[in-house]
């Protein structure tokens, strides 16, 4: 009998085309998602070498990072460089025969939202994209990770990647989540516990009762930030929720293919006795709604805490914290709940799905965004936007004073017109609080959609449980 395998081992083994003596493997790739920022040089490389795309039918392209999110974008993109990048993607998709969702297609959206939405993402697959948040797709039990542009070109040309296997790490979250605590709080709390390099060299499998209890949307939020913990990828074993989510999606299997796929998907779990190189256990009951206070996603604290001081840390982190606090304009000892904000951003591949918008609407229904605050909701895809309009969510958000935008990456990385001004402070449902991430000099506090909604109502970081 073969030795017990982890879910990661199983997916890895099923995709090895060849293996060298030193463990360097050629790994077959099932899906390649492409966006406009990290692909133009790769397509140019193919053209210069006269190489075709090996499997255009396994590749899908969508513009997301650069696109404006105001409705007037139907008239074209003003910024010339952005327009050129988006046009290059469209042209490359056409030339190489790749499915493409253009800016005015209702299926357009953030690449990591539309992959699952269209059924491109399925359990057991290997999925890559020139974007670190490809980890999102791990929610379906797919091995999914970000790659650089050279690797994008490699996958386009060969449908494989040169890889060495990572180590196995298990993160188990036991018990039930308390009220007001969401997938975002879990994933930030894990990074708070492990640090941003805690997962380096590992693929994390998330498991335990609290993870099983998450919806598919919640699992996507969880896996999305695996990269912020340094992990190559995050995984959740597929279950009935996964199958129910996928059934009937445009690119999901159907008919007898569905039955065959389902039978395979049901084998995708870690065997009893499978070995992990590292394990971490968290008790869901101990997790509180959290926010970040610094410029690294590991700078996480419960909303009830106070801003720490550099002296609370050791080694290189002490200098980093001093730098962070200066950048963030924060004083040690200040209660997080006393930190006033200027902007609320709800969206991104971390939290731009329908469930996130429903949660915000539930909290702000019949209430008003604090006077003078800029509050923006950017659905993750045109279809999320459409669904939110059909469910009456858009109306609730607009009545509360939120701007209701078109789909895109928006203020998560500010490559488009949605940016913070220097010194502006934002409660953001996105994934990175790096210096300048949301605009030069902008200050980012990462939190859940529920916490962002609470902050929008009060104009400061707020414990959603107290509302």
């Amino acid at each position, binding site marked *: 009998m073969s030795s017990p395998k982890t879910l990661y081992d199983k997916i890895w083994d099923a995709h090895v085309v*060849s293996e060298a003596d030193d463990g360097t493997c050629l790994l077959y790739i099932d899906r390649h998602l492409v966006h406009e920022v990290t692909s133009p040089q790769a397509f140019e490389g193919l053209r210069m070498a006269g190489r075709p795309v090996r499997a255009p039918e396994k590749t899908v392209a969508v513009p997301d990072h650069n696109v404006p999110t105001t409705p007037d974008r139907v008239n074209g993109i003003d910024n010339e460089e952005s327009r050129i990048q988006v046009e290059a993607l469209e042209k490359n998709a056409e030339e190489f025969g790749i499915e493409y969702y253009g800016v005015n297609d209702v299926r357009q959206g953030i690449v990591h939202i539309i992959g699952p939405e269209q059924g491109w993402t399925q359990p057991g697959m290997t999925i890559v994209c020139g974007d670190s948040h490809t980890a999102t797709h791990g929610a379906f039990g797919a091995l999914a990770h970000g790659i650089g542009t050279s690797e994008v070109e490699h996958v386009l040309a060969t449908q494989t990647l040169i890889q060495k296997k990572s180590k196995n790490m298990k993160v188990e979250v036991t018990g039930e989540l308390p009220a007001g605590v969401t997938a975002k709080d879990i994933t930030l709390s894990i990074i708070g516990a492990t640090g941003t390099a805690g997962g380096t060299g590992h693929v994390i499998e998330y498991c335990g009762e609290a993870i099983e209890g998450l919806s598919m949307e919640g699992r996507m939020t969880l896996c999305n930030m695996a990269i912020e913990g340094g992990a190559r990828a995050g995984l959740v074993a597929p279950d009935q929720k996964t199958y129910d989510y996928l059934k009937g999606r445009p690119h999901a299997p159907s008919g007898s*293919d569905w039955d065959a796929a389902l039978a395979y998907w049901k084998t995708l779990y870690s065997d009893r006795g499978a070995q992990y190189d590292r394990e971490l256990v968290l008790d869901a009951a101990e997790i509180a709604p959290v926010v970040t206070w610094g410029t690294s996603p590991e700078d996480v604290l419960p909303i009830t805490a106070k801003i720490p001081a550099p002296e609370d840390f050791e080694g*290189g982190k002490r*200098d980093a914290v001093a730098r962070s606090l200066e950048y963030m304009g924060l004083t040690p000892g200040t209660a997080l709940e006393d930190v006033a904000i200027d902007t609320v951003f709800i969206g991104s591949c971390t939290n731009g799905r329908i469930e996130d918008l429903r949660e915000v609407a539930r909290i702000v229904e019949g209430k008003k965004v604090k006077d003078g605050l800029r509050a923006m909701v950017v659905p993750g895809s045109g279809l999320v936007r459409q669904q939110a309009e059909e469910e009456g969510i858009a109306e609730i958000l607009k009545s509360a004073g939120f701007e209701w935008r078109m789909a895109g990456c928006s203020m998560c990385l500010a490559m488009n017109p949605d940016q913070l001004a220097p010194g502006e402070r934002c409660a953001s449902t996105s994934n990175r609080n790096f210096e300048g991430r949301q605009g*030069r000099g902008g200050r980012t506090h990462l939190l859940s959609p529920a916490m962002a909604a609470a902050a929008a109502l009060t104009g400061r970081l707020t414990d959603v449980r107290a509302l």
Partner: protein
Amino acid sequence: MDKFTTLTGVAAPMPLINVDTDMIIPKQFLKTIKRSGLGKNLFDEMRYDDDGNEIPDFVLNKPQYRNAQILVAGENFGCGSSREHAPWALLDFGIRCVIAPSFADIFFNNCFKNGILPIVLPQEEVDKLMADAERGANAVLTVDLENQTIQGPDGGEIAFEVDAFKKECLLNGLDDIGLTLQKVDQIDAFEAQYAKQAPWL
């Protein structure tokens, strides 16, 4: 890709942990459709003020480090986004080697694809090289990939580890895609067998 064999050059000290790819090359410079020309915007927000003037205190603006070819940095260098613009910007500036106690995964891989050698060393050895680097242009390091050594300014030698396959590619400036396409028969065979096993894909 340019070969990497030996490199002798000035090392710039950057004693920061978690240097992320947004610091290395901010998002507004990712709108290019080319690989070249990013060097002037390397570390843009740390290197220039709001009016575009150089900040004299920033290490790469100091006269002794303007031609640095090596960077010595703190742990988890290159964390964050997968943007290959980060190694492109380093390369375009002239940096061919980064030495740190640890690197983020995607950035680490991206370096090798561009003829940049990222070297992982224990913290105490990085500290020593950091101290050497603080001495500026008088402290030239020599990185020898073939022999996997770094020679310090005072003659001391530090050995480093590197993946054998990646080393081979760097030493010979090999193109990954060309190498993989030599295995196209294996890929074809895999695909054929896979299509039978998983016809829904």
